[in-house]
């Protein structure tokens, strides 16, 4: 019979890594859910270096236990940066199925010129697509599609068909054709966004442009694990706080955008044990506020702009304010500029000469657990500086209180979970929220969020509201669950975690718009 302690030692470990704008964080979670190791390293220009450094740091702490690591979850800003900097983006053939409809606004209308130039290999609107009631506008014109693709040099194809969230078959038909005859990867809009043609098309094109970036990230992650002789399964974190397999990430790289805030929210829920809360993540240059509902991030109802382009895929509802530990304090007001990662040289508490919010908070008696001697290092201050710092804290508190109120939607009883490296600057009491919770390991909440993430799948479609409604909703639930399994979830543990029904007006047949999300723990 096996010895119990020995079994426990063999139990599996998970590593969560979050590549942020300033820092790359890593944690190791034990099978009991405790944080066994953590590390914070600067994010490097070639971001995989910072990733390797953070990974090495936690592995060093683990020692021999490193061989028990069975999974590594990465949340990364690679895709966001690629779009913001117009770097490493692939050339995309942009195909829309809708003609003769939709021709008054062609694809990529309103895109910033430089992004369009970096991404578009050509655009076409060809016959195809559906009406709201499911009838085809026209059958897809395969000849026109071939003529378009023959005339462009592209690394990927993005296909958007009218009403595809309700009727995806025309997009799938194009995918088959392109795979078989052109051997190119295809980005299908119904897998990416919801209703709203232009925003969904934009997201689909960005997704196709990110295939190369996704391959680079997953390649680097796999290589880093191999170099370190880790036989762990790699996953990527996505914008709803859940995970996907590398195969899935390769197909939907755009959904890694927004994974940072989502991880921080999920990590905050996990570390604090609170499923419904306002989360305030204080970083070096900015503070992100989000809301936890049932342990998941509340999603934004509005379209989200990425790199100057409006998209409609679901993202956490985040309010970012220009306030961080490194925010510069002046005689009149604070920020919005920040000393950023240079805080360790420039802030007064580190012996520098630039007053920051960190200094103002320390002067007000808010000192982090590892901040021994910070107050002493600020030395004797003139009355002028003391006044300036005092005013700065008041302004910063006002900013946070105002932002909390905006996110709280009038409910003032929800607790507030303070996370991030600068969480100590937050006051003890914040009107508009319940008690302030400062969980252990709050400074690496992002990486914890990545480490605990579930796998998920979602469906957003239009269904008849009549007699067949309940049957149709059952099918949508099954589809969402199947997508969660495809993303890596254990088929026996998948649950429907979100179901939203909105009745539609002005239609010939009553109809409802249905959004379903399924999630479950990773299959072993």
């Amino acid at each position, binding site marked *: 019979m096996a010895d119990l302690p020995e079994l426990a030692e063999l139990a599996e470990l998970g590593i969560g890594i979050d590549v942020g704008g300033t820092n790359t964080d890593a944690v190791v979670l034990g099978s009991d859910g405790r944080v066994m190791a953590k590390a914070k390293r600067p994010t490097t220009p070639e971001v995989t270096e910072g990733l390797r450094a953070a990974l090495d740091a936690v592995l060093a702490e683990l020692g021999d236990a490193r061989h028990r690591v069975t999974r590594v979850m990465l949340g990364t800003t690679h895709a966001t940066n690629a779009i913001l900097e117009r770097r490493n983006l692939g050339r995309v053939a942009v195909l829309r199925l*809708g*003609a*003769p*409809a*939709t*021709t*008054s*606004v*062609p694809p990529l*209308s*309103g895109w910033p010129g430089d992004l369009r130039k970096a991404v578009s290999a050509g655009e076409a609107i060809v016959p195809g697509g559906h*009406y*709201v*009631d499911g*009838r085809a*506008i026209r059958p897809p014109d395969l000849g026109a599609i071939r003529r378009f693709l023959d005339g462009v040099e592209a690394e990927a194809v993005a296909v958007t068909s*009218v*009403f595809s969230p309700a009727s995806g078959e025309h997009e799938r038909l194009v995918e088959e054709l392109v795979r078989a005859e052109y051997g190119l990867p295809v980005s299908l809009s119904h897998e990416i966004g919801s*209703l*709203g*043609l*232009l925003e969904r098309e934009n997201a689909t094109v960005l997704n196709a442009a990110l295939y190369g970036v996704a391959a680079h990230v997953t390649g680097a992650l796999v290589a880093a694990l191999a170099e370190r002789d880790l036989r762990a399964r790699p996953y990527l974190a996505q914008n709803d706080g859940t995970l996907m397999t590398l195969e899935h990430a390769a197909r939907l790289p755009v959904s890694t955008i927004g994974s940072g805030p989502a991880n921080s929210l999920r990590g905050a829920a996990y570390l604090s044990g609170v499923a419904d809360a306002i989360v305030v993540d204080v970083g070096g240059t900015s503070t992100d506020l989000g809301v936890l509902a049932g342990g998941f991030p509340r999603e934004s*109802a*509005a379209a989200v702009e990425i790199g100057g382009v*409006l998209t409609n895929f679901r993202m956490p509802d985040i309010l970012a304010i220009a306030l961080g530990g490194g925010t510069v304090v002046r005689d009149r007001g604070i920020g919005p500029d920040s000393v950023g990662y240079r805080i360790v040289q420039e802030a007064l508490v580190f012996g520098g000469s630039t007053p920051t919010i960190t200094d103002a908070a320390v002067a007000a008696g808010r000192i982090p657990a590892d901040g021994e001697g910070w107050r002493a290092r600020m030395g004797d201050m003139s009355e002028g500086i003391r006044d300036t710092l005092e005013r700065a804290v008041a302004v910063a508190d006002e900013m946070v209180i105002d932002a909390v*109120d*905006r*996110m*709280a*939607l*009038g409910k003032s009883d929800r607790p507030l979970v303070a996370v991030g490296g600068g969480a100590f600057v937050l006051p003890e009491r914040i009107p508009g929220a319940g008690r302030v919770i400062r969980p252990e390991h709050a400074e690496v909440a992002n990486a914890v969020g990545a480490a605990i993430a579930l796998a998920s799948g979602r469906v957003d479609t239009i269904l008849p509201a009549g007699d067949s409604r309940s049957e149709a909703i059952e099918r949508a639930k099954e589809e969402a669950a199947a997508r969660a399994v495809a993303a890596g979830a254990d088929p026996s543990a998948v649950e429907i975690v979100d179901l939203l029904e909105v*009745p*539609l*007006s*002005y*239609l*010939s047949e009553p109809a409802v*718009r249905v959004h379903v999300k399924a999630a479950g723990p990773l299959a072993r």
Partner: protein
Amino acid sequence: MSDIPALARGCAVLGTGGGGDVRTGSLAAARAIREYGEVPLVRLADLADDALIVPLSGIGAPTVSHEMIHSEDEPKRIAEEIERLFGRPPSAVMSSEIGGSNGVAPVAWAAQLGLPLLDADGMGRAFPEVQMVSMYVAGLPADLVIMTDVAGNVVTIRPVDGLWSERLARAVCVAAGSSALMADYVITAAQARGAVIEGTVTRALEIGRATEGTSPTGARAADPLRALQDRLGAARLITGKLTDVERRTTGGFVRGTATIEGTGDDRSRTVTLELQNENLVAVEDGRVLAMVPDLITVVDTETAAAIQTEGLRYGQRVTVLAWPCDPLWRTPKGLETAGPRAFGYELDYVPVEELTAHG
């Protein structure tokens, strides 16, 4: 006529919360100008008496119009049908409603037809129903509606009155996949005099430029909200925070209420807005501050950008402005068509300037 962003901002303000999102119309207008050239803006006085004016508007469900965008061929088919019926082509395009998307999209339609855009519209704002236009109020017979859809169908309706034009146009729209382009009335310039609301495109542009905060010298205005209020001649009903938004969909329209709690000078005041696609009535402590057909718009207090009813969210810092409608709407027929009772409110119309005079 090339400053589409300013026009769009102005149309959003005149949309009084409704009229549809101006974004897609703006993209279509910008593209059509690039493709077909500038659209001249003409005044009614510039047109010969027998010149035909085609008032155009998109009609359909918002969810559908965000997905099923108009075909570029639609205006051409309506123009061809007019030529067939009248024996001559139209001379100018007019916006049926200047508020919201139907105020911006006509720039695209005019460009595609190579026609000028008339500096006028049929509402001076946004209204939800087909017969709620100045031509109907002025007594022009509502005896012609031409509609076309993305597939190329053209439907010509000869309704007996404005109420039937709404009912039949709605049915055709649903059959066409809940999205169509519509010419409601085709009028000569002579008929249009006194029956359309003039100068509204220019007004929308001026409003847009005011909210942008740029003066002719290019300097940013310090206070876009003040600039907007001055430009509109509007009463400020309240400045505060949105604390409650309630919506329900009934009979094809979104109805609801929005509550704004005052801040600053307005602390301890609360104003409630009744919504039905547009902002229709503003109430404080049971006292009406403004009501349809006068215009009520919610704007972002900081940027003075208009917020549509569907964009209202808890916590927004907003200011509610109200200002007088065109005199046409204050006539008995105007109030019967689009006064408070036309929207189901048991209220006798009182002009906003009287309601807010001693406020």
